[in-house]
């Protein structure tokens, strides 16, 4: 296995008394698409800025390609960043923007121009090369910003919520552009976002941050199906979280009694004792609904509160007798087979194997 490209070694960042990053200890592999995701104020942007040298870690060490980067000024690093605001130079044309980094590196005008035009062509905006930045559309500016960073031919590209200002249909297009580029160039992308759909759609691995710490690192599927703890489960959303007491243990399952009833949950890596409190989750899309009480266990009767319709998918919001909220996500055409409306009593149930125990933390 090759050495990681970036190592965060017990990194902390304090701003006066405020601790923005409490402890970061993780690696970024060569050629991976890593997304760092979390609610605002979780320290994700600070993490990215430390990697670009715009903030210095208070404690710990950041190593890039084996070299300690703590005291390397931003201009001496090879870590181009695509900014949330894009930060294009408004007094330069699209081509001059792309040439900027090469100019700073002292590359001759003829070569600068050639390389800039090559990247503008690659991004499909060659025809706008001599246009003023202010005359370009949001999507075109986005491409100029990408070309400006990629023309440097870096081994790592940093992206700070670059798609947050775009319309929904453009976001999908740019996601495809970004993943294609990353695969083609084989360079490392570090992508900071608060958007779960962006992170899950593009990243090989996702880092979930909360409160200045890493809550979980894993593939999108790991994080979605097997959230490590309550924070991740809640942040990822569309999860049903149940808490209760472990009443009995078998070789590979535990029985947990909650206010909503008794459920069987598979034991994975988490060590459990009888009598302890435990929480588990079931993804909303793995819950079945029925009008009659189902024969399998893990069932609970609920009342429909509301539904949210998003394209072909519907999310039902329900409550059991004790007022605990449940969510069910399903295809709209499947839901239409049932005749349910607000207040209707229906049964929810799930396969034992689909439940997942959370770490208490």
């Amino acid at each position, binding site marked *: 296995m090759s050495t990681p490209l970036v190592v965060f070694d017990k990194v902390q960042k304090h701003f006066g008394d405020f601790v923005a990053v409490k402890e970061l200890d993780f690696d970024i592999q060569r050629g991976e698409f890593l997304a760092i995701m979390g609610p605002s104020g979780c320290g994700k942007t600070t993490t990215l800025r430390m990697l*670009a040298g715009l903030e210095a870690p208070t404690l710990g060490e950041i190593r890039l390609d084996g070299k300690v980067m703590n005291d390397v000024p931003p201009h001496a690093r090879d870590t181009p960043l695509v*900014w949330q*605001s894009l*930060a294009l*130079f*408004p007094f330069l044309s699209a081509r001059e923007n792309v040439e900027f*980094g090469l100019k*700073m*590196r002292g590359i001759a005008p003829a070569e600068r121009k050639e390389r800039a035009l090559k990247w503008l062509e690659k991004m499909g905006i060659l025809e706008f090369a001599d246009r003023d930045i202010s005359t370009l559309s949001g999507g075109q500016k986005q491409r100029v910003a990408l070309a400006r*960073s990629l023309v440097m031919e870096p081994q790592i590209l940093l992206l700070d919520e670059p798609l947050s200002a775009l319309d929904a249909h453009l976001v999908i297009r740019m996601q495809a552009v970004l993943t294609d580029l990353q695969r083609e160039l084989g360079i490392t992308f570090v992508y900071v976002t608060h958007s779960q759909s962006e992170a899950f759609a593009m990243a090989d691995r996702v880092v979930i941050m909360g409160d200045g710490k890493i809550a979980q690192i894993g593939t999108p599927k790991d994080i979605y199906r097997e959230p490590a703890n309550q924070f991740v489960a809640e942040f990822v959303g569309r999860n049903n979280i149940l808490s209760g007491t472990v009443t009995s243990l078998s070789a590979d399952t535990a029985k947990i009694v909650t206010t909503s009833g008794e459920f069987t949950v598979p034991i994975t890596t988490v060590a459990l004792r009888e009598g302890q409190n435990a929480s588990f989750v079931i993804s909303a899309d793995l819950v079945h609904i029925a009008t009659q009480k189902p024969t399998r266990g893990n069932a609970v009767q609920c009342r429909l509160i509301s539904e949210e319709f998003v394209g072909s998918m519907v999310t039902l919001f329900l409550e059991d007798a004790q007022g605990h909220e449940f969510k069910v996500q399903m295809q709209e055409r499947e839901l239409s087979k049932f005749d349910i409306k607000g207040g209707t009593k229906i049964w929810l149930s799930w396969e034992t194997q689909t439940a997942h125990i959370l770490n208490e933390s």
Partner: protein
Amino acid sequence: MNSGRLLNIILGIYVALIFCFVFAPIIFSMIFSFNSQRFPTIPLGDFTTEWYEKIFADPDIWEAALNSLIVSSSAAVIATFLGFCTAYSDYRYTFRFKGPYLALILLPPTIPLIIMALAMLAWFSKIGISGQIYSIVIAHSVLTAPFAMAVIRLRLNQMDPDLEAAAWNLGGSEWATMRHVIIPFCKPAIASALFLTAAVSFDEFAVSWFVSGLNKTLPVVILEIVQGNIDPQVNAIGTFVFLISMTLVVLAQIFFASRQLKSIRS
């Protein structure tokens, strides 16, 4: 709809009145500069260019004009440089006593000119640099730097806060970023500040009169002519001074307004 029209008419009259108050005396002065009579009275006498010929023939006035030109252009460059440095340090850094520092820099225009002029004279005599042309340049630079600072600070406020960091991120050192990003971004404001400070310096009388010694500027010469007797030459000089300052101010406005329009469009 109707009240909107009425408002437009009232605003039109209001603007016309303001123009009248501001420009009527100047226009009269221009008219009298072509009047053959010695005293500014109506009815006017014959059309003449006598007063203009007189001032063009007067070496004192030529010298004063040259002094004014040197002073206002040097003061404009120094004041704009100081104003830029202050504006940038305010934009970029936070430091102890920044509040008092900024207040101190913006103070000169709030001090009555006559007090300022006396203080400058006393200080310059004390350190032995009074009565030189560079004395006026120094005094005017202090006096006009706050205007330059205000104009450039406004421009820096419009800058995307990430722009500078983006230049570092692309390999630009602090100096390269200053040269290739900050200064180009501030260019219209810098031009505007140059013209504005030049105009203020060109017109300034009180401080010039106190510290100029024998190196008189145009406003000082005008006063000396008026003090002696009533001489329509003053109207002719006044017309020139007015045209020059007006041109400078209008140029400053053009640079100022064009970037405002541009930022609105984008």
